[in-house]
């Protein structure tokens, strides 16, 4: 069934409903994320959830000031973040149940960054030592 078209200028009651439902969605995402951390803790879900919560908070502030257009935009931002987090969780749930728990992180994880930095620092050291060696050889060759 086709969903009724949403208005870009919802009234106060509709905005309260939207915000409350986004908050409920986020609460469910939080619980599912906790459960999912047994097989994969997605940093992107955490960032999206935090961003959604921040946007929602701002939406509430604007609504209290009766600035409906800004409140609606913030609520929309919160919804986009929430929807993104939900879709990532769903994809990972599917992979966990039907696949082999091989997950693709859409953004580099802190652990992978840490690993790469460590490797680059070692490479830097090796290459610098190599410069000394090359210099010694150059000196030997006159």
């Amino acid at each position, binding site marked *: 069934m086709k*969903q009724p078209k*949403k*208005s*870009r200028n919802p009234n106060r009651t509709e905005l*309260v409903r*939207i915000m*409350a439902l986004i*908050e*409920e*969605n986020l*609460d*469910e995402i939080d619980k599912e994320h906790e459960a999912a951390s047994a097989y994969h803790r997605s940093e*992107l879900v955490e*960032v999206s959830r935090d*961003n959604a919560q*921040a946007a929602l*908070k*701002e939406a*509430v502030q604007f609504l*209290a*000031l009766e600035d409906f*257009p*800004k409140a609606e935009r*913030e*609520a*929309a*931002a919160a*919804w*986009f973040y929430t*929807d*993104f987090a*939900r879709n990532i969780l*769903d*994809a*990972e749930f*599917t992979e966990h*149940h*039907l*696949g*082999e728990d*091989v*997950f*693709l992180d*859409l*953004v580099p994880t802190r652990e992978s*960054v*840490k690993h790469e*930095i460590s490797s*680059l*620092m070692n*490479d*830097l050291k*090796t*290459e*610098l030592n*190599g*410069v*000394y060696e*090359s*210099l010694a050889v150059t000196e030997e060759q006159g």
Partner: protein
Amino acid sequence: MDFMERLDGNREEKRLRKRVAELMRELADKLSAKLALAPEGRFANLSKMRTAKGQRAYIKAMAALEQDDLEEAMTIAVRGLLHLEIAHFHDNSPGPNKTEKLIDIDSQPRESIARLSEALCQFKQLVEYRNLDVPKEAQERLGRSTQYLQNAIEAMAAADDEEATAQAEAGLVFLSFTVSQVVFDPSEFPRALLIGPGQSNKKDLTRLMEAARTTGTTLAQAAKESAISGWKAKSAANKYIESALNAFLENNGGEVNKYLELIGLETGLVQRTLQQKQTQRQLAQPSTNQTSRSQPGTKAVQAKKKEMPTEYPSSSKSPPAAKPQAAARTTFRKDFHTRNPGNSADSVESIIMGQTEKIAAHPYSTNTPRLVDPEEIFDRTAPDSPLDLWAKPRKYYKIKEAENAAANFTTSQRQILQATNYSSANKREGTPGERAASPSASSAEPLEMRIERLRGIVDRLNKLGKHTNDPSATASVLEHLKQELETLESAAESGKWQAVERSSTSIHKIRREFKSLLKESDLL
């Protein structure tokens, strides 16, 4: 102030005081009624949380009233009532419907944001389900596409619709190019990236996405077959895609057309070369059964052998479908494989780099969570205007740091390319450590080669430096490192060996300094 003005002022204050008193009474009544009943239901925790916020608002409003700050008291009281209203909704809520789109997305830029978000998730699902191998370079570009999504959402929230649309569409083009490097079978391309009806009004975007996709696939295939190694067509195609995307972002339709034609010509050349190669191979090995060959690089063939479902599950709670059996596979493609990472780097990184750098300097450009606590902003004791800060992006403080860092990070396309090449060079030749240990590596290796590799390492570290706790300090240390490397290079070129040694020692010291910064950020 004359008598009449004073009288008006007194009346206004009286009116305001009366209104605040009414609001405070209403808040107190609703709060006591709410606190008398323990919240129940599925979202009792949320109801409790909102009630606590309402309670805090009441206390703050009372404090403001004591200070005769009537406007502040009124604002806080209204907010407190709103918290209680949301708490009331949670008490009676049946819960959200996961498929319901709560907001209007039938317009730009929201349509593009929704599409990019969907495409990213579809690609993730495809890669995970198929167990595809995503090369490191492709993963980085994927991260950038995800960043475009956040930038677009933030721009949309800040009412900058034009910027939001541009960011989301740039993300779509970038993602199309990235996906085409990983997914060879057009039928398995994420649906959200395919051009559907209703997008005919976006002719340039459509053509650009198609061009990015075709070029990406062609270049990936050519790289795999080593058909265009060292060929200038590769860099030319990259350059034209980049220029086309820049023209698109500048809304210059004429330029977009020009570059799309050039892309078509270059891609056509590569495709013809590939066809020739295939014909030659077929002539050389006429008995080879092409369709039965397995692809050694395909994890899907080696490990999982799954079949893609015709529809993606929309909910994690839906009962999992039976895992497809190998025997039942009908649509599985044996030629479905991934790109050789060793050959991929230089054909991809530069493509949208110009526009990426442009966007990297954009104030919304950071993938860190929003950091400014709006509660703090609104709770300031004497704000001039609570909304003044909204003239700036919400992540203002964090963004300033990122901007400073970005200014230092900005490197030329050539340098970034080298950094990427370094990674792929490592893949091809092993890490410097491995190379040193290998029989071919020797201390007599030309100094220029070492310097080139050092430059690659420093550029790569520059890109990763934004992950430290203090990006500005990191950028400054890395800039120092870069300068010292340039000194070393020019000393080596002019044969001043003592200066080379001095620079190397200096780089060692900077490295130690950088190491301590990394340790402080728990990155080492």
